Each structure stands twice: as C-alpha cells, then as structure tokens.
C-alpha cells in the first residue's frame, strides 16, 4: 500500500477509524504514523482552545428586543388592515362626494371642482389601463388614491372651517 494521503490522515485524526489495510500500513510505516500523530496532536490542541461565551446580559438584550418586535407585530396587523380598507374605499369616497355635492350643495364652485377632479382621475385610469402597461395602471391607481384622499381631507377641512360653521 502507498502512503496515506494528507486528507485521509486528517479524517483519521478527527473522526474516522483506519480500515485493515490502513492499520497495517500505519503499523509498518513510520512516516505515516508520525504524520497521523501530528494530526491527532493538532486535533487535541484545537479541542483545548478556550472558547469565549456570549456576555452575561446578552440573553436579556435579545429577549427585550424580541418583546419589542412582538408588540410591533401586534400593532401592525390592525393598522395595515385598516389602511388597506381605507385605500380601497377612497376612490368610492371621491365618487360619492362628487354626487353628494351635486345633490346637497347644488352647483357650487366646490362641488364642480370635486366632481371634475373625480372625472379626471377616472379618465386617467381608463386611459392607462391596458394589459401592456401594468406599471402605468399602478401609477394611475396610486395617483387616484392620493388625489381622492386629498379631496376628502380638503372637503372635511372646509366643512369644519370656522367660516363655514359661522355660515350655518
């Protein structure tokens, strides 16, 4: 048998046991036996290297961060659900507001403006909504949501303004 290669010597030193041929060779070959002894010695040295432990307060730090993360997750779920529903309802709100201002406020300049805005948003969405331009559709939807939301907010602010309250 030829000499045992270095890779195999390392395996023998770490975990494996030599087969019969290897054992016979190691018994007869001082070179391989010496190399194996060196490998075994290194393995033993490595086993004695002291290993640092995590700091004592590490567990407390991590569990504290975990508690914060858990509370965020508990908080996030209803907020996201509410946000999603609100976003879906916003375009409807714009349309409803347009119709409502027509009925209640007659042909005031505000009602006309809101209605025109709603129609512009809808026209824009129709114009860009094609299968070949999904990115534009997304932008249009986002723009509609933004404009719709701003319209609702503006309307609410106008309705609750001191001048409006005084006029009632």
């Amino acid at each position, binding site marked *: 048998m030829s000499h045992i290669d270095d890779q195999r010597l*390392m395996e023998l030193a770490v975990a494996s046991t030599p087969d019969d041929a290897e054992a016979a060779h190691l018994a007869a070959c001082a070179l391989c036996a010496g190399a194996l002894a060196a490998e075994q010695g290194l393995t033993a040295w490595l086993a004695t290297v002291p290993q640092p432990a995590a700091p004592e307060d590490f567990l407390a730090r991590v569990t504290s961060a*975990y508690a914060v993360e858990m509370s965020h997750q508990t908080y996030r779920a209803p907020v996201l659900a509410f946000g999603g529903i609100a976003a879906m309802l916003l375009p409807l709100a714009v349309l409803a507001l347009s119709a409502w201002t027509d009925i209640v406020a007659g042909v005031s300049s505000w009602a006309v403006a809101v209605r025109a805005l709603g129609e512009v948003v809808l026209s824009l969405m129709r114009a860009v909504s094609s299968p070949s331009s999904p990115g534009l559709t997304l932008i249009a939807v986002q723009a509609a949501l933004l404009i719709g939301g701003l319209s609702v907010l503006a309307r609410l602010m106008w309705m609750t303004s001191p001048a409006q309250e005084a006029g009632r």
Partner: protein
Amino acid sequence: MSDTSGNAVDERRLAERATRGDARAFADLVTRYQNAVYRLCLRYGAEEAQDLAQETFMRAFVHRERFDPTRPILPWLLTIARRLCIDRVRKHKPVLAEDDRPLDPADEHPDAEATLATREQLGQLKQAHSKLADGPREAIALYHWEGLSYDEIAKIMNVPMGTVMTWLHRGRAQLRKALEEAQVPVARGSAS
C-alpha cells in the same frame, strides 16, 4: 453532526413555539445557540459582535417563515450571522480583525483545566488561527469548535463540500506549521 433526532424534535418544538410568540421558547433557543452565534460574530469583528449576534436572532425571528423546520437551527442561524458580518465588514473595516484578546480563564471550558497545554501555547495557536484566511479560519472554527459537519459548513459558507475539506486541510497544515515554528510539541499535544 450537530444534530440528534431527539434534540432535533425538541429544537423544532421550541422554534414553533417561539414563532407563535412564546417568549420563553425564544429565550431557550437563544440560550442554546448564543455562544456559537456570538463566537462567529466575534471572529469577524470583535467590537460589534454583540450587536451582530443580537441582530442575527431578531432577523431569524422576523424571517421565521423561511426556516425549514426539518433542518437543524444552528446552521441556519450561523448563515444569517455570517451574512450580517460580511455586510458589516464590507461597510466598515473590522475594528479588530484578529481575536488577539488575552486568554481569560473565565472563558475556558472546565475540561481545559485537565490539559497540559500552557496558556502561552494556546495563545499561540489561537493567534495562528486568527491569522488564517477567512475560509480556512471559519471552516476550522465551525468544524472543531462548533461541531458542525462538512455539509453544514458548506451550506453556511455557500461553497461545495470539497472546498470545505480543502480549507480544513490547508488551515490545519498552516496551524501545525505555526505551532512547530513556535516549538510547541504538536504530536504530543494530547489534551485528553
């Protein structure tokens, strides 16, 4: 190598409970693996090791749906830790590239007391290890000190298993040479 069937089942249960919000299970997992994760982070940059180790556990929790419950947790945690460390090293140079802190008796395993090795000789070995290239250094640490298999190390380091074996062999040869140069009797280094 790091996994036995009973331990794996226990580990899986702990992981399931932790992901459902059981703080005690999460703490058990941290207690079990904090040293291995912390040590890996320490090897990449001593100053930030604690922060990186903490971030590792939090990332593991946040991305818990990516964990394969049929596999052991430690290699997954170490994979996350290693990626975090590499990202951090790319952004900032490590403050302490080599772990050349003096050996603290409090760090030592109780078994180590039985060894004939002197603190000086162990310090030389530790220093030689810290000077190895990244691959061999990490392969030796994960194999000899964390008890991982070739396969687990290959997955953590994202290399073929043959590369891990080459790194181990090359790293050990360099360590042996360093010990011989320091006139440490390698072949008689039996600690047990």
